[in-house]
């Protein structure tokens, strides 16, 4: 198919095609940015937590009487929970991955102020934390019962040992010899590193170095206790009410509350990302529909205007295929011009965003797929009107208007 004569004929009635090209250009600009945003969000949502999310839940116990102390009731609580059929493990903790609240602390390799350090999450947990969270130990060992210390109000904090995530270990001890070395936390330490776990996300979805976490054996004996319970695989729904009942039975004066599956916590943490992705995909889909309508509309308009001309060409021996290809080429040219303009527009928008909004980089990864989608969609959209054009009988040319 000759492109030049078709392009030339397009230029004669150029307003419609120019508008369509403009539409395609803006759509391309949107799609490139939307693809980038959605992909980015989905990648973040799919990050692992390192925890057995599917089988684990959090439950809280709060003493309602002024003289309540969890120090005296906690051992019995843990024992009662462990005795429940279907419970795999239980631990106390101060926070959970993606839970939103936790302690952010400096972890350093030495006591001096300029010692190499990282900032990360400090998980304060009990001795069976690795089993309860479902963490994979890659070096060393877990905590021992005698290492667990209280940090009740009025007592000083003793941190006897620590377990690092691989990310913390790699940053602080790149030689790979973290276990057995000392870790320094502000106003504490030295603390002996006893183990390394593969992965444990911080409590904060938006924390840059998401897997910089350190576990320490501490328990809060204040009036409020958070427990993490891991059920045997597939038995979460059955175990949750049993644990609640067991805690209520042990002391009805306490409030047993805030039970939530860790998978649900993770899902809530990414609510904004999910919403943004859904909105971008919806608007993108609506834009494609509007584009298809525009293409169908313009092509139908052109076909109707040129009925006699098409009939004449058919009468002069042009095949149906030639007519179909004519319209497909015409749309192809318009969309391609639009895509070229869109490329310039996208680069322009991106450049402006980089300067105005401190956008980090010019990202055109998604340009080829977005352009391909628009081009193919354009060809499919024009097929209907083009086939209607091809079915115009040659006899129409001979009829008087």
């Amino acid at each position, binding site marked *: 198919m000759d492109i030049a004569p078709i392009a030339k004929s397009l230029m004669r009635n150029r307003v419609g095609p120019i508008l369509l090209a403009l539409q395609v250009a803006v*759509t391309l600009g949107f799609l490139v940015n939307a693809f980038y945003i959605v992909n980015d969000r989905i990648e973040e949502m799919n990050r692992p937590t390192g925890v057995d999310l599917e089988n684990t839940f959090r439950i809280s116990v709060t003493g309602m009487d*002024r003289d309540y102390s969890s120090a005296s009731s906690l051992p019995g609580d843990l024992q009662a929970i462990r005795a429940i059929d279907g419970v795999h493990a239980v631990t106390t903790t101060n926070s959970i991955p993606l839970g939103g609240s936790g302690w952010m602390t400096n972890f350093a390799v030495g006591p001096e102020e300029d010692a190499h350090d990282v900032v990360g999450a400090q998980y304060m947990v009990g001795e069976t934390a690795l089993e309860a969270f479902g963490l994979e130990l890659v070096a060393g060992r877990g905590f021992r019962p005698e290492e667990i210390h209280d940090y009740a109000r009025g007592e000083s904090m003793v941190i006897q040992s620590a377990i690092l995530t691989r990310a913390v270990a790699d940053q602080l001890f790149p030689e790979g010899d973290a276990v057995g070395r000392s870790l320094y936390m502000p106003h504490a330490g030295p603390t002996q590193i006893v183990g390394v776990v593969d992965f444990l996300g911080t409590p904060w979805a938006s924390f840059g170095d998401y897997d910089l976490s350190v576990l320490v054996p501490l328990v809060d004996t204040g009036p409020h206790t958070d427990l993490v319970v891991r059920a045997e695989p597939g038995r979460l729904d059955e175990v949750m009410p049993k644990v609640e009942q067991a805690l209520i039975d042990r002391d009805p004066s306490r409030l047993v509350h805030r039970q939530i599956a860790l998978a649900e916590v993770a899902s809530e943490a990414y609510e904004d990302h999910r919403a943004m992705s859904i909105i971008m995909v919806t608007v993108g889909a609506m834009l494609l529909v509007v584009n298809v309508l525009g293409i169908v509309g313009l092509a139908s308009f052109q076909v109707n205007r040129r009925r006699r001309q098409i009939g004449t060409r058919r009468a002069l021996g042009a095949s149906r295929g030639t007519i179909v290809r004519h319209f497909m080429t015409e749309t192809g040219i318009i969309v391609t011009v639009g895509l070229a303009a869109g490329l310039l527009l996208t680069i322009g928008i991106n450049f402006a965003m980089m300067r105005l909004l401190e956008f980090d980089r010019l990202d055109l990864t998604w340009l080829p797929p977005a352009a391909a989608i628009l081009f193919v969609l354009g060809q499919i959209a024009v097929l209907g009107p083009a086939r209607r054009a091809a079915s115009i009988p040659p006899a129409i040319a001979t009829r008087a208007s």
Partner: protein
Amino acid sequence: MSMQFAQLDYYFRLGVAGLGRNRLLTGLMVLAIGLGIGAFMTTYNLYYMMSSDPIPAASDRLYNLRLDITPAGDDGYDTVRGDNLPPLMSWRDSRALLDAGMAEAQTAHYRTWVTLKPDRPDVRAGIELTRAASTDFFGMYRVPFLHGSGWSQAQEDNRERVAVIEKALSERVFGTADSVGETLTINDEPFRIVGVLDGWQPTPRFHDLVNGPFRDNEQLYIPFSLVEPMELPVSGQFLCPENPESGFGGMLRSNCNWINYWVELPDASARASFEHWLEGYIASEHQRGRFQNSQQYRLHDVNAWLKAMNVVGEDTPMLVAAAFLFLMVCLINTVSLLLAKFLARTKELGIRRALGASRGAIFAQHMAECVVLGMVGAAFGLAMTWAGLRALDALYSDLSRLVTLSWPVVGLTIVAAVGSAIAVGIYPAWRASRIQPAAQIRAA
């Protein structure tokens, strides 16, 4: 004059009749304008609500105050745009500033939690998020009372066990909205209710942005002077430049920050004299070894504070931009559709021109059609905006207060829809008005 009105009326009737022809094209145009305007106004409404002034009566005289408490050489915090100071204040400074009382009014407050044991057997005991706030809180923030009032300075100073309660909680624990004078057991101590609020909820919640600008407010308020005797824990951001000593006393003595501190300064001279006093306070504390990093402080009025805390965030402007692009595509599409529609009338217009209709008359007739189109589009757009806001409400759990359609946005929606329809109609109407009369008569 009356003739011109008649003329206008004629154009509009032609416009309505014109829209009635070729229903498919008309439908597509209404759809395009309605969807485009609906998407844009949905996101704009969100942006508008997020960036609105939560307390217009006093936003230029209420100031958030922060001090640079970070240790020497510390990088500080990156929570607030434009500085590295912590976003909250320490107990020590809050207490000292409250006691000095150098501003016209001042309040320190933070969110804590308490246990509630209602006296009625049918009401379950529970924990309740509560705000510990000093006396001026209610007056400074212009909090309207349904019953009673806040507590006095004397009650605050005497550490009286008094509380202000929200209507909803009052109804839950007392079975009535008017619970003034009733007793409520908080942390095992009897408190007397002195005032009832009717769902006070500034949006954004400027007085505690650090802990979520769109969260629900607490249902219970108790005096700030009870923090020490009752050892009220912090439920919210607790930022320590270094670890505190152990115990509640250690927390109070520390440089940890968890308190919102606001002052009311009615004019420039009040501000100048407060700042003069404050600089003196910081200098004297500096001599005692505090404020070694810098002796800086920051005062932000309400709207500046909303900006500094980036309440609108990054996602909302992105949504507005995306919806704007969508609107542009819809409008470009409408231009094509209008062009097709108007030029399909070539024969008829040629006849009207030949019968004496001026170019201006043809142009006006088509613009009138666009205005009618815009009004129908506006109605559809409003429906779409409403639906869009419902969709946002379903997607985000904490936006329920931001997805109500505000009146200014309703007005803007109508103006935007009609304005867009006029803007996209100009070129097609001009083209229609250029149709030559003679040629068409010949062809017909």
